[in-house]
């Protein structure tokens, strides 16, 4: 109850992000959002997806590092976060390898994007 009224002189837990930094990150996020929509007006084939994902990753990095405070946090938190990403990446990559391997054979001609192997 009264504990909160005392200035213990306990070390501040956590670093306080300056407001200008938060605002700058927000503006950067808006900017990248605009860019990612604008890019869809240009046809770059498969590159469109790569660019879209790259921009999304930059935005995500901004949110994670600054809004979620990971830049200043205990490095273990970052480890936890990166590990989850690593496992999702692994999950997707292995599934993609698997489906690319077998999809043409599953139903002939059912995967137009993939090479249909000659029987």
């Amino acid at each position: 109850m009264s504990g909160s009224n005392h200035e213990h002189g306990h070390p501040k837990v956590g670093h306080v992000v300056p407001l200008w930094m938060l605002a700058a990150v927000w503006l950067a996020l808006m900017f990248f959002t605009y860019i990612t929509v604008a890019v869809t007006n240009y046809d770059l084939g498969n590159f469109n997806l790569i660019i879209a994902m790259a921009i999304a990753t930059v935005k995500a990095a901004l949110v994670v590092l600054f809004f979620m405070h990971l830049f200043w946090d205990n490095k273990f938190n970052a480890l936890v976060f990166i590990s989850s990403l690593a496992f999702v990446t692994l999950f997707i990559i292995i599934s993609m390898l698997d489906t690319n391997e077998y999809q043409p054979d599953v139903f002939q001609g059912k995967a137009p994007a993939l090479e249909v192997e000659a029987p």
Partner: protein
Amino acid sequence: MSESVVEHGHSHADEHHHHDHPAHLQHHFETEEQQFDASKIGMWLFLATEILLFGGLFCAYSVYRANHPEIFLYAHKFLDVKMGGINTAVLIFSSFTMAWGVRLAQLGKKTGLVICLVITILCGFGFLGIKYVEYKHKWEHGLLWGTHYHDQEAHGEGHGETAGVEHAEGAETVEPAAETTDASGATDELSEEEKDLTTIPVAAAGPSGTLLTAADDHSAGSHGDEPGMTIVPENVHIFFGIYFSMTGLHALHVIIGMGSIFWALLLTLKGKITKEYFTPIDLVGLYWHLVDLIWIYLFPLLYLIH
């Protein structure tokens, strides 16, 4: 350093040992810092599980899109990029106000914190509102999952009608208008026409109904300009199954996030949040940022397919 652990339940206004025992410091922690660190780690671990949860859906997306790009190229046009873009802006702004709120909590500025939390919740409502509009539109036009999907070629695409063709396989059974009884009457008329306008025979379109017309090679985005026929791929409902599960699960998380922030708001109003103890704001903020993160990926993957 000895803690006044034994004083559990007593009034803390009494004089203590050397260390004050802040009300918010739980007894199984030695210091506030340790408690704070533990709370943070716990939240990040939970966020990791959330990432894995959505990761499964992203994997489904990847596999289906790799195998059937024609479905995604065709179906994504039914999504409104403007709405998706506004939603993105709304969530990003709400992340900003949430992070600002955490800062204000750390500075002990209660009024500003309350304002930021309220704005964040309002942004959540805005997001859900736009989602509702989008979902409603899809419901009315039969842009749904599984067997509830209605073939779209009679309207909305801006093309002339497709050449009347037959469906080679029964992959898409068009349900009668029973599914859309609460839609406008126009949809009922649609159902009649839809039954005539189905998709292309496999032979005409090449293996497994690839969507390409002669002109429609790379720029599948140039829909509506082609007066000729648009080849509709099979199994378009898959896109909407993925769309609704991903955005639906995300919307559920938005709702949960809003509830959590509201809880944090109540704590703040009751005076429980201080410079020394702002952990609930911090953790609830982390959850909200995750919701934003997921949408940052959902938006380009669903709306900005090229």
